[in-house]
């Protein structure tokens, strides 16, 4: 059985056949957008939404800050289905062998049996497997692939779809609105606490592909859930694009932990948008690890909209050779007595560039708020860089915001001490780095903590001399 601890680079880099790609044209057009909508048998309002988004995409410019996005949008294949089937398969056994093997190597079916309440697996633009354990279904929990949710729960989807992240938020959200496909819909009714985590895994296989999954998570009053997202893709030397969108609605007294381990290949642009609206006395926790991608621009955002709402943002970003990890967090305090905490740990190695970019904004009506931001960075060699760009806006005189950041290298005295105790230099460095990222790792379930540690170890391979 494949476990996370057995992970090696080969697993992520292995690719399957991608001859199905011949059926799909590169580039973006109104015709393509209509085709995607028709093939999914979508209601008229969704097609209108897609076309409006496409119009916005052509109008809005790319951001004039952050890493350079050197991406030819006409060279991307925006939609591809790797199987002939429309919609998901009922069991792992029915899924074509090569796709099933990929997910098995990634340890998804094993994790489902062992520790998950539900699993969704997306391959290219379509979900191939989605399942929720019966006990949760009986309590009214809905865990569906987004396309199915649109058919089965149209009113609910319409009520929430792209309300938290509007089309015109930025160019990539507009693109997402036009060509989105797949993703997850999770609805947890009042007073239901899902004890085990739910997981979605997104895999891109073919070269030059774009993946635009849309995720909506709704937690009704006093409900609890832990949602985990994983992503990976093989490396081709050709640009791929991931521009997903995650919209989260956490109602009164509810609690959501959203964990993600992003491990896209190093030729992928990961330009993802994630945002949560947090209600009265509710808690939103983001735990994120960004290991892959050539360029990442990802700033999960919490809008604390009602009194007593709270959010924690915990993140690790590892920038290796050729990577730019531009990550961070945004918190908007719009209500009184709200609180936020941001802890990020950035690592850069072999010329990698890590950037923390964050915003904390306390609005005038949000009295008695607190916010703590702590962002640390380790630079592992002279060629690597680390930048910190926090933006703190306080419009309220009863609120308190504190920010701290440190940047430096691994302490040589610590390495020397460990080596004097018989530990090899590479292992000593790894141990120190594991200690550095520990506050984030310990927020993950054990299996995923092992995965994250293993990914860091993979990134650290050959780091000595």
């Amino acid at each position, binding site marked *: 059985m494949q476990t996370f601890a057995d992970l090696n680079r080969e697993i992520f880099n292995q690719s399957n056949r991608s001859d199905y790609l011949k059926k799909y044209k590169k580039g973006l057009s109104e015709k393509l957008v209509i085709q995607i909508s028709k093939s999914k048998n979508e209601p008229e309002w969704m097609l209108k939404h897609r076309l409006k988004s496409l119009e916005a995409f052509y109008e809005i410019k790319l951001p004039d800050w952050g890493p350079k996005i050197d991406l030819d949008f006409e060279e991307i294949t925006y939609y591809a289905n790797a199987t002939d089937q429309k919609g998901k398969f009922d069991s792992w056994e029915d899924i074509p062998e090569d796709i099933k093997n990929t997910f098995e190597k990634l340890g998804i079916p094993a994790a489902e049996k062992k520790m998950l309440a539900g699993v969704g697996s997306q391959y290219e633009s379509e979900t191939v497997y989605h399942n929720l354990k019966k006990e949760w279904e009986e309590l009214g929990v809905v865990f569906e692939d987004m396309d199915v949710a649109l058919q089965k729960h149209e009113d609910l989807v319409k009520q929430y779809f792209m309300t938290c992240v509007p089309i015109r938020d930025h160019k990539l959200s507009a693109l997402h609105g036009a060509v989105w496909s797949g993703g997850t819909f999770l609805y947890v009714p009042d007073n239901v606490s899902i004890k085990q985590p739910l997981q979605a895994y997104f895999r891109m296989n073919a070269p030059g592909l774009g993946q635009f999954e849309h995720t909506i998570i709704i937690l009704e009053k006093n409900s609890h859930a832990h949602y985990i997202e994983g992503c990976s893709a093989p490396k081709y030397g050709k640009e791929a694009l991931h521009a997903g969108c995650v919209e989260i609605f956490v109602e009164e007294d509810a609690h959501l932990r959203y964990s993600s381990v992003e491990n896209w290949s190093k030729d992928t642009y990961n330009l993802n948008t994630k945002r949560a609206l947090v209600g009265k006395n509710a808690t939103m926790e983001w735990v994120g690890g960004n290991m892959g991608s050539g360029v990442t621009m990802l700033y999960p955002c919490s809008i604390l909209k009602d009194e007593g709402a709270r959010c924690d943002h915990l993140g690790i970003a590892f920038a290796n050779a050729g990577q730019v990890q531009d990550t961070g967090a945004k918190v908007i305090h719009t209500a009184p007595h709200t609180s936020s905490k941001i802890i990020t740990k950035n690592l850069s190695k072999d010329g990698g560039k890590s950037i923390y970019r964050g915003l904390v904004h306390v609005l005038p009506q949000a009295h008695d708020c607190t916010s703590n931001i702590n962002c640390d960075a380790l630079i592992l060699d002279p060629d*690597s860089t680390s930048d910190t*760009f926090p933006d703190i806006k*306080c419009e309220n005189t009863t609120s*308190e915001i504190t920010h701290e950041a440190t*940047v430096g290298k691994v302490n040589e005295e610590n390495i020397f001490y460990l080596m004097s105790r018989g530990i090899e230099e590479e292992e000593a460095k790894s141990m120190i780095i594991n200690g550095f990222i520990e506050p984030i790792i310990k927020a993950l379930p054990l299996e995923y903590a092992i995965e994250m540690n293993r990914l860091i170890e993979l990134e650290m391979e050959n780091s000595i001399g």
Partner: protein
Amino acid sequence: MNPVIVPQNEKLNLIILDDQKDNKIQIQAEDDSGIKLFILNSSAPSITARLKNNVELEINFASLYQKNSKHEIKVTCLGNNSKTIINTVFLTKTNEQQDLKISNIFEGQNNTGSITINGILEDQTRCSLEGRVVIKNTAIKTESNLHEKILLLGEKSVCNAKPILQIDTDDVKANHSASTGRISQEDLFYMRSRGLSEQEAEKLIKQGLLLAPFSHLDKNHKFFRQLETRIL
């Protein structure tokens, strides 16, 4: 105004009080020189200093009740082994606006830098602060820190703080901290338990914040005396 060149082994001591000439201050420091600037309520829009080797630079800058004041301080360590200290404080009332940009750029090796910005916003005042530390990839063994502490005391005061670090090499130590908020209720409680009225306690805390960056100065120093008198 032409750049002031501080020759090798020379010391420059400059005190500018209530200068309203809108002149830019430009300084070029040669090897082994020392510069101390004391600036209180100057309308100089910018102060730039370019340092060669073994230079000691200290900028003490205060802006009290200045209407719509905009200042930029930029210090570049071109050479090695220099030490820079930039201490700034500001105090605003009514509907004044304070814009402050301070950057410390390190190109040479083995330099140290420290930036402190303490400020108090009263009434409906606004401030925009940008503290930036840039360590280029040639600047190994740099040690730099940046601290911002802002008290919001007015009912409608607004603060926007951006403490930025841009680090291009590994063998450095850089840190920054920023805090924005009101007077700590615990501090107030402690002082009141020692017999001070709320007003007296608040006054002491404000004085402490604004004078702390200059605690190394002689209490009879002209700049310190003026500052103390005006904030009392």
